[in-house]
């Protein structure tokens, strides 16, 4: 898989580490959450077959985090 790093361009997937689902922000006030809401933040993530917004870090390159959309069935990177 070739991953387009926004800073370095397309690079082999070996240079990257995976960060799971994107758009799951750290809660602004964890203390205000119920146990259930906190557990959902900690443990529950989407796992779709198809397009998936996810986080990557160019660990063996510029070390920057970024989001991209990948089709989990075909590994096609959609943007």
């Amino acid at each position, binding site marked *: *898989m*070739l991953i387009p790093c926004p800073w370095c361009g397309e690079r082999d*997937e070996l240079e990257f*580490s995976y*960060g799971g689902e994107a758009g799951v*922000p*750290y809660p602004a006030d*964890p*203390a205000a*959450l119920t*146990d259930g809401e*906190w*557990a959902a*933040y*900690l*443990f529950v993530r989407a796992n779709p077959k198809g397009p998936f917004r996810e*986080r990557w*870090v160019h*660990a063996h390159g510029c*070390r*920057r*985090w970024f989001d991209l959309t990948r089709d989990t069935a*075909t*590994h*096609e990177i959609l943007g």
Partner: protein
Amino acid sequence: MRFSFAGVEYEGREGETLAAALVRNGVLGGFRSPYRDRPRGVFSDGEEEPNALVRVGDEPLARATLVELEEGLVAEPVAGKGRLEPPRRERRYDSMHAHCDVLVVGAGPAGRAAAAAGGGDVILAELGRCAPLDGVRVLERTAVVGLYDGNLAVAVERGRRLWRIRARRIVLATGAVERPTLFEDNDRPGVMLAGAFKRYGRPAGATPVSGGFTPRVQLWRQAGGRLRWDDRVGAPVPDGELRAVACAGSVTGEGLPDAPPFALPDGEEGRIFVDLERDATVADVRRAVAAGLRSVEHVKRYTTIGTGPGQGRTSGVLATRVAAELLGVHPGELGTTTARPPYLPVPFALLAGRNRGPLFDPVRVTPLHERHVELGAVFEDVGQWKRPRYYPRSGEEMDAAVLRECAAVRERVGMQDVSTLGKIDVQGPDAAELLDRLYTNLISTLPVGMCRYGVMCRADGMVFDDGVVMRLGEGRFLCTTTTGNAAAVLAWMEEWLQTEWPELRVWLASVTEQWAAVAVAGPDAREFLQPLTGVALDAASFPFMAIREGEVVGIPARVCRVSFSGELAFEVWVDGRRGHELWRALEGAGGATPYGTEAMHVLRAEKAYPIVGQDTDGTVTPQDLGMDWVVSKKKGHFVGKRSFDRPDTSRADRKQLVAVLPADPDELLPEGAQLVADPDVPPPVPMLGHVTSSYRSAALGRTFALALVRGGRGRVGETVHAPLEDRVVPAVLAEPVLYDPEGRRRDGRPA
């Protein structure tokens, strides 16, 4: 040129394959089948060859149709299965990376046309020999064995060089392979595919057969392409389109002759062979179908057809047709098998290339390494680091050396290379804020010139790492990490900074290798070190957890009063390039015993200082370790805090760190040993926990262990049992800190 086969010498010709030379020399047999020991001979002239397998030199299973003759080549026939033996000499394999606009696989007419059509930078890969082509990079004798995501093609050149080729577009011109036909004893030597028969010059005594052609669709399948059954060619052909992979020529089925009509032949079905590599016959397929199997995947598993080194090249479609005939259905209804890389067998050594032996994984050594070697240290691997485990004196076993090193630190003074500790420089106006959010305890209250032990948890509240945080200035900190976790901690800090708190003005840098550090520990540490430095070391001027800058043995140094043994201790940090000099000067001063990681482990365990990753496993909170004191009650927030209020983390029966004292003080429990309350109850015996660390202690004069035990702190004083392979060991649970629980030795020898 001369070559030998099965011990007989023959005359060969330049550029000929072994199979061609054998056939030309009238050798139509000479091989045996793997399971039924039937005589076999050269059957084809390509990579699909099922019979003519040979051992050549160190290559245990080569196809005679792909072996190019060399002067003096020695080949031995192999019946189906090669035997791997240690190579007589190490072969060196290389790897190459290439990028191109178009990769064409196969240099037949369609492949050459596709390559010649250009479209930018073109690579043409051909399994056999190939004439040059203008403006095209030709890789001959190169097998493309795998297609992966992102149009990555993996190819093997001459069996020696691995290519990883990134192509914008791939054209598969892989052609078609001829199919055998079915008749009784169709495996006899001399029976060969019609195309091969023709190309071998119609050898006398040979019988040409042809059951039509099967497109080589394996790479298309690997790329994710679909197939459809084509009645005209009597085989599956590529269907639909892929974004960046196309097929050209006879692999599409176009231009292939009509397949002859297919019918099950008369004759003894156990002698009508479908897969020569597996000695599988029509009778085997009939058995599979009779057992109720309907898809070709299932028939394949039942009969093993297509599971040989050829992976069904000549047998797959035949098996489908036979099964369809027996079931009375159209062969397209039976599905197809999945083609996975590699297309041809690839030796693991080739995949490894030069990344083996010392080049497999980098070895990291500290600036003092050479001296450790001279001192006869026994090393252990900690991550990629080599660390001295102990320094045996002549004739000394490990146990004796470790007891001696421990005693030296407890009774006098020892010195240890602690340069491998991860070190992260944290700078910026918001550095203290960042560290407050990442460590469980308060960092921002730390005065400049002091350091503090800190623990980091994941958001789930489980211990992730620990270390010492030094405050070097208002906005400047140096964090140490466990040796094996340095990269992970830096990545962790970066992740929070970049993704959640980009507003914090903080900069991070790994400085692990910029510093060399030596710990000087023991009740005589002050007396040992004071003559070597202008830094005042007395307890009043240099309190516990303080940092001083100065010179030690004339080298600019940072000295920290931290202790991982419970004894009075100073860590001396100097420029990494002067670490060796520092160590030699400390040695030269005399009186300090070098100690290794094993003694360090014993000493810290006597004090119940946990090792992250040994006494913890990602399911352990600071509270489980008995370190409630390291979790700030004042801070509004830090990563992990919310999880300490989860019902799971406040369960009373969580596993907690306790000490374990075997009833027999000489009994050393194995690390990992399970602990149970009553070994005599019928299984399943409830597990209370397990031993995480276990040592012989010089100071205690006995063995001891640390363990994670359910509700352990409430069980102190109870007897538990460790069921080992041949016996059950009773042991008593104890408060975790076994040595100097009052901490009286921290400032030196107690009065």
